Structures are given as C-alpha cells and as structure tokens.
C-alpha cells in the first residue's frame, strides 16, 4: 500500500515537472504570437504583457506589403513540392531495385551512395556553386531543385529497409505473371510502402522547407527568396525600426505551415521518427 502511495506521489511530482517544462518549451512561441498582436509601443512594456489589452491583427495584413512574403511562400512551395514529389518517385524506385531486383554489384553501388551521408553539405557547396554559376543558374530556384530530385539517399535507405522485410514471394508471383518491372512497382510495391513513403516525405518536406544555407548562397533578388530568407531579411530590416510586432507576425507565418502539418500528422511523424532514429 505504501509503495503504491509512493509511486502516486512520484507521478504527481513528475507530472508537475513535465508541465513546468512544457511551459518553458511553449512560452517563447506563445510570446512570439502575443508580440505579433501588440502595438509597437506595447512591446517594450515592463513587466511584459502576455495578453495585450488592445489586440491588433493589423500586422498580419501589413506584412504582405512590407516584404516579398507571398513570393517567398510561393518559392518555398515550388522548391519543396517539386523536390519531394519527383525525389520521392526516384528514391522509391531505386529503393525497390536495391531491395528486390537482381543486379550485379548492386550492394556495392548502394554502399557507394550511402557514403554521401558522410559528406556534409558545406564540403560540397563551393564546387556546386561554381558549377551552377557556370550554367547561369545563380539567383534561380534551379540549384535548389535539381540536385535533390535525383533521389535522397536517406529515403532510399529507409525504404529499402522497409522493403527487405516484405517477402519476396510477392514479387515472384508478379514475375510469373509476366508484368513489367515498372508495373510491379506501381501496382504492388508502391501501395505496400506507402506509409513509409508518407513518413519520409513529410520529414523531407520539412527539411527542404526549413533549409537556409543553400538558399542564402544562391538567391539574391527579393522576388527569388524563399520564406526563410524573407523573414531573416524582415528581421534585419525592421529591427532597426524596432517594429517587432511586424517581425514576429512574419515569423509566425513562416512557422505556421509546418505547425499545421505537424499537428495533423503528429502521430505518424512522431512514430516514424522514433522508428527511423532507433534503427538508424
């Protein structure tokens, strides 16, 4: 009995500690939201006001005029969607070949591709830049789209793992039926790996959407910037005028799409991360 009681008290204390931690985790983001609704002068109120008396949604209208926010979102969408859709297709096709088809030296090739995981982007960015500069692609979205659409080795790796656990008999039957290999992929394999593809796709999308280093290297013109660069510029330009509500409103807009995707798919995302991390 006393043991049970002790556990209960411990649980309560832990619950309290976790709640306090959760407040610390969420407080900066709530503050960001609250600041975006304030008047410029209320930002500097001491002690800070969490719920402004005079809620002002105006900044959410103003930001669209204050910088190329809309084109930023468009550019980020163009990059993320084309990279993830085409890249997922090429990656899952390759994963199918690596896991289920017979090809001489395919495991050697696979290990070769895996070596890419060990080379950090900063070690590649200078030659890549000079390559794309030679093609006249600087200040276009192409250098951000073209390399990744050839396939993502992380995705290939996880889909291959997933496929290896699927019995070969599924394929053998299709082989006997004489269906083409691409037909096998679209009719049998892809429907099977869909959940794994979806999880990897979401993670990849978030990675591309939030990328900063590659866009900052290639993009200069205001109408070419991605959303991440746009808010970084908002920050640099409007901090001088101490227009923090404007900056925070723009940052909220940059956060929102991912937040919505996450809240909708949070169960799948959290599960797939737990699995991929433990296995990786």
């Amino acid at each position, binding site marked *: 009995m006393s043991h049970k009681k002790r556990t209960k008290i411990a649980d309560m204390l832990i619950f309290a500690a976790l709640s306090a931690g959760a407040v610390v985790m969420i407080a900066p983001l709530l503050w960001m939201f609250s600041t975006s609704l304030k008047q410029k002068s209320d930002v500097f109120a001491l002690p800070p006001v969490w719920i402004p008396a005079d809620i002002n949604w105006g900044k959410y209208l103003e930001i669209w005029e204050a910088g190329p926010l809309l084109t930023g979102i468009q550019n980020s969408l163009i990059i993320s969607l084309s990279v993830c859709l085409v890249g997922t297709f090429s990656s899952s096709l390759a994963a199918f070949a690596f896991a289920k088809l017979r090809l001489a030296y395919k495991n050697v090739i696979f290990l070769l591709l895996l070596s890419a995981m060990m080379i950090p982007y900063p070690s590649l960015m200078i030659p890549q830049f000079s390559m794309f500069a030679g093609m006249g692609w600087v200040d276009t979205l192409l250098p951000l789209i073209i390399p990744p659409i050839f396939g993502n080795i992380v995705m290939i790796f996880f889909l291959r793992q997933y496929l290896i656990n699927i019995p070969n008999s599924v394929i053998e039957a299709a082989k006997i039926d004489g269906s083409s290999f691409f037909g096998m992929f679209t009719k049998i394999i892809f429907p099977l790996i869909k959940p794994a593809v979806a999880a990897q796709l979401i993670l990849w999308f978030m990675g591309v959407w939030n990328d900063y280093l590659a866009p900052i290297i290639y993009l200069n013109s205001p109408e070419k910037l991605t959303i991440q660069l746009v808010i970084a510029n908002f920050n640099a330009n409007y901090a001088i005028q101490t227009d923090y509500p404007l900056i925070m409103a723009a*940052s909220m807009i940059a956060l929102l799409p991912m937040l919505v995707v996450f809240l909708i798919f949070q169960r799948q995302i959290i599960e797939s991360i737990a699995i991929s*991390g433990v296995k990786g």
Partner: protein
Amino acid sequence: METAKVEVNKNLQPNVDASKNSKRVKKKKSNFYKKESRAALIFILSPLIGYLIFTLYPFLFSIYASFTAWNGLGSMNFVGIDNYVKLFTDDYFGRSLFNTLFMMVGIPIGLLVSLMLAMGLNRKIPGTTTFRVIYYIPVISSLAAISVLWQWAYNGDYGLVNQFLSVIGIDGPNWLQNKDTVKPALMIMAIWKGLGFSMLLYLAALQSVPRIYYEAAELDGANAFQRFKNITWPMVKPVTFFLVITNIIGGAQMFTEVNIMTPTGGPEYSSATVVFYIWQKAFNNLQMGYASTMSVVLGLIIFIVTLIQFKLNDRSSFEID
C-alpha cells in the same frame, strides 16, 4: 547503420545464388535475369547519376580547389599546401573552430535533460501525448523563425529571457552583445530546439525495455538509482550513441542561428562557427580556394566522427525493434 550492414550481407547470399542458378539453368531464365538487371539499373540510375554529379564530383573538386588560390570565377592557381599552412596561423579559423567545439558542450546537457524527460513520460501519467507534441514543436519549427524569435528573446532590456531572470532576482546580461554570453545563449537555444527529438528517441528505447527487468530488480531490492544504472542506462546506450554522433555532425555544421542572430559573427568573432567562416570567406570575400580548404578539413572531421559511429555501432550487439 548496423542493421543495414547485416542486411547487406544477408542479401548478398541469395544474390550470389541467383546468378549462379541463372548461369546453370536454361537460356530462358538468363534472359529474364538480364531483363531484370536492366530494369534495376534503370531504376537506380537517377540517384547514381545524382551522386556522381552532385556529390562525388564536387567532393573531389573541393579537394583539388583546396590546393589552389581561386576566386570562384578566374583561373585556379595551384599553391600546394599553402592554404593548409595558412589554416594554422589564421586566428579567425582558430576562433571559429573553438566556438564550434565549445558549443558542443551543450550536447551532453541536452541529452541528459531529454533522457530525464523521457523517463518521466514513460510512466503512467496523464497527458503524455500532449507533452510529446508540445516538446516536439520546436523541433519542427523553422530554424530561421526560431532564431529571429530568440534574438528578440535575448534582448538585454526587453527580452523574455532577462524578464524571466529578473523574476528570480537575476539581472541578465545583454546576451548576444557580450562575448562571454553569446555562446551559452546559442547553446541554450539549441538545447531547447533539440530536446523533443532526443526525448522521443529515448522514449522509444525506454518503451522497448521489458518491464520484467525492473520487477526482477525490485524483487532483488535494487533501489531507483541502481535500477537506472544497471538497466535503463545500458538499455538506452545505443540511442545515446546515435544522438551524440548526429548531434556532433549537426553541431559541426551550425550556421543559420549564427547568421541570423549575430550577422557579423558576434562580438570579437565569438559566435562564428566554422561553416559561418567558410561561408564568409567563400561568398563574401570570394576566397574560394581557401574556403575549400576549410571545408575539406570540416568534411574530414565529420567523416572521422561518422566512421566511429559505424565502427562502434557494429560492436554493440543490442538492437531494438
């Protein structure tokens, strides 16, 4: 990675058999094998070409460029190991390397906190799903937006951090303008952002530990600390290892926060990281040869760390599924 290796070996076997078989039996089957191989080759062609053009070639080019003086546009003048020699005397490179390593101190702190959080969440308490979601939100948030937010939160007079500190009676510094506090400031933010990810992986590992282990230990009279030391810690060790390595690899490439929060590299260059310095040299000063040298050194460091991961992971036989 361990699973990958094991499976590669497992996979190799049937493959060898298959090709042997196809040689032995009728011509018809070998035709089919050829067809299959051709399809497989076409399917892997895209990532293979991508790898050759966008990874292997730039990588080799980087190594070559690291031995040249090059502004990115004109001709590349071979200068031998001059750039590498220069690295040793370059005060800014020394500082950026020191800053990068210094900020990795945050890694064990973050992991310890996230393990504690995961242990808390592994108990039968209400609201665990909500907690998981809340702790994970910073992970999915855009680093640029988070950096903008924290730059404001670190404001010396009006920032959230100092206002919170003043509640407990501490007069906080102007975090990002002070060379002693700018690195801890970036570290704290990185811990805050990464906590949810490590916590989630730890939680997955903890949930796979059979409860019977703890029950047996309790019967034997082991106290809470002993149970942690002898059961929990060894069982989550592979995850700890994975997290340490991925955090080191990520930490070695830190750039966004520095670029946004301290655009000049901080007071006395005290927050500039290696990647920040590479980026400045390559794209602001157009010293692409020298920047390539630094990127090769950085790549080498990361390569060694990754190699250690592969090696040590091979040795640990424990696996969660």
